């Protein structure tokens, strides 16, 4: 585990050979501003998204045979069905009818034994096989038995589902995740079955969103009213990482929380009621209601590796996008997906324990209003940030030590992009 102010140039491999992150970004904390608005670099990022493992969802979303959901990868113009097939288990297919390319499933999730295309009613089994087409004898070029929906690689780690749009993935999921593939295997993610999802379009490059979620340096200012109190301890006001590591192209960090946070019952009676009846996801406070019956992440050996006394949570930042945030009383997933060089999509999901009372449901509703407003502060600010960068006013941006993860996130993605552009990234010589 590194302490917060020790950047380290460490190689990663996303299937194209070991590569070092861009040195200037990692060691000096200086990045060229055009990475956020260069169309050429965005095109290279599109290639990367089309060839690596991408977070798609959770196994609970396809728990029963016939359960399915759709994962869109907008930068690749891809829409992918992930489905539980009774015989073959979890499978993924391009959401594209074999007839003339119509989008097959238009809802975000559902439960079906058969997928029927809305255009001409061609129908497919959940293993992808073409089962029926109207006026079949007049399609001599189509042999049902040989036709299956176009498969997409799908695999899972610790209950998280990943897809790979490359017809021949360069790496298995296990290779892509590296040592992370052995972590959190039995962590109690499914003990938090009630979740709240939010999504919205952003007028900003996707990397700006991920960078905001990778540092707590902005909390005391941007979230002064909405989060500073519970997020920042007095002895760590800029939210320095308590310990972090780079694992291939991925990053893990341990975060603080504020053990001295208490809610003023007089000034904030609603928030006090909420916190007393539903442990705040990120809280380690003694005021949190007793959730003994709830398996906790707190003692998991793969979490809080620095063994911080006031453990706020761990963030697993998976290349190329998405953060799994694991906390004392729940967890969340936060991600920004590229759509265009100046457009992205924010998707986040917070996971709570099953509420036992209406009181607890109300408290969870309060939590979500709180979390939603914090991310709203981030997201509209980020749109303004993109505008500033796209103006070309700045040639470079700076990542300081409290933004240590950003040095690495940015340095890793830049090196990966430089590879695709045929540049001369620093490679590791053969060991």
């Amino acid at each position, binding site marked *: 585990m590194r302490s917060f102010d020790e950047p380290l140039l460490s190689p990663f491999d996303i299937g194209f050979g070991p590569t070092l992150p861009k040195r200037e970004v990692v060691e000096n904390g200086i990045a060229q501003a055009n990475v956020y608005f260069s169309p050429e670099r965005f095109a290279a990022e599109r290639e990367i998204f089309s060839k690596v493992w991408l977070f798609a969802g959770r196994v609970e979303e396809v728990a029963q045979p016939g359960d399915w959901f759709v994962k869109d990868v907008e930068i690749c113009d891809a829409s992918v069905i992930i489905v539980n097939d009774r015989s073959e288990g979890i499978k993924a297919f391009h959401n594209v009818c074999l007839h003339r390319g119509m989008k097959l499933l238009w809802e975000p999730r559902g439960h079906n034994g058969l997928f029927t295309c809305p255009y001409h009613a061609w129908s497919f089994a959940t293993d992808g096989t073409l089962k029926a087409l109207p006026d079949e004898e007049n399609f001599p070029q189509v042999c049902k038995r040989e036709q299956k929906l176009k498969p997409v690689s799908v695999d899972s780690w610790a209950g998280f589902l990943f897809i790979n749009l490359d017809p021949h993935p360069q790496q298995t999921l296990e290779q892509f995740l590296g040592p992370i593939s052995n972590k959190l295997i039995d962590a109690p993610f499914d003990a938090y079955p009630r979740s709240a999802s939010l999504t919205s379009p952003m007028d900003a490059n996707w990397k700006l969103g991920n960078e905001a979620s990778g540092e707590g340096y902005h909390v005391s200012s941007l979230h002064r009213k909405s989060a500073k109190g519970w997020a920042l301890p007095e002895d760590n006001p800029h939210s320095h990482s308590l310990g972090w590591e780079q694992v291939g192209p991925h990053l893990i960090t341990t975060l603080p929380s504020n053990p001295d946070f208490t809610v003023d019952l007089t000034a904030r009676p609603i928030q006090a009621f909420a916190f007393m009846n539903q442990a705040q996801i990120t809280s380690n406070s003694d005021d949190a209601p007793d959730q003994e019956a709830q398996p906790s992440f707190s003692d998991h050996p793969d979490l809080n590796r620095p063994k911080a006394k006031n453990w706020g949570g761990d963030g697993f930042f998976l290349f190329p996008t998405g953060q799994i945030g694991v906390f004392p009383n729940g967890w969340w997933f936060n991600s920004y997906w590229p759509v265009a060089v100046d457009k992205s999509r924010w998707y986040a999901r917070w996971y709570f324990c099953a509420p036992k009372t209406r009181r607890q449901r*109300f408290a969870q*509703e309060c939590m979500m209003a709180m979390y939603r407003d914090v991310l709203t502060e981030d997201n509209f600010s980020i749109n303004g940030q993109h505008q500033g960068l796209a103006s070309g006013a700045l040639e470079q941006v700076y990542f300081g030590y409290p933004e240590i993860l950003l040095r690495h996130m940015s340095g890793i993605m830049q090196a990966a992009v430089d590879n695709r552009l045929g540049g001369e990234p620093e490679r590791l010589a053969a060991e």
Partner: protein
Amino acid sequence: MSITKLPDQFSALEPFAEKWGRLETASERYLLRQSLTMDELRTFHDAAANRLDEIFTYLDSFPDGDLPEAEARLYRTVMGLSEVMQAVEIFGAPRVKNAPYPHHIDTIWTHSGSE
């Protein structure tokens, strides 16, 4: 169509039920909060914020599942306090700074496994 009044002991919240008691989702409640003045939000806050324990002790005395209409309306009304909390206790303003008005965003709740 007549509106079912709130349970008698909560009749003081009837003025707030007119606006908040029809709303079903967080998105609707967030939109209403954005449209109200601080005075309107504070008035609701002052009438209800210190009665939450009483309100939920009452509501949780009913079995799981659908509440009778008067109680369901009470529950929907009180859910509005999740948004009032943000405006009155956190920001001192109805809207999040720099967010557009109106700001539409859905909070989609799901529960995996059996409800």
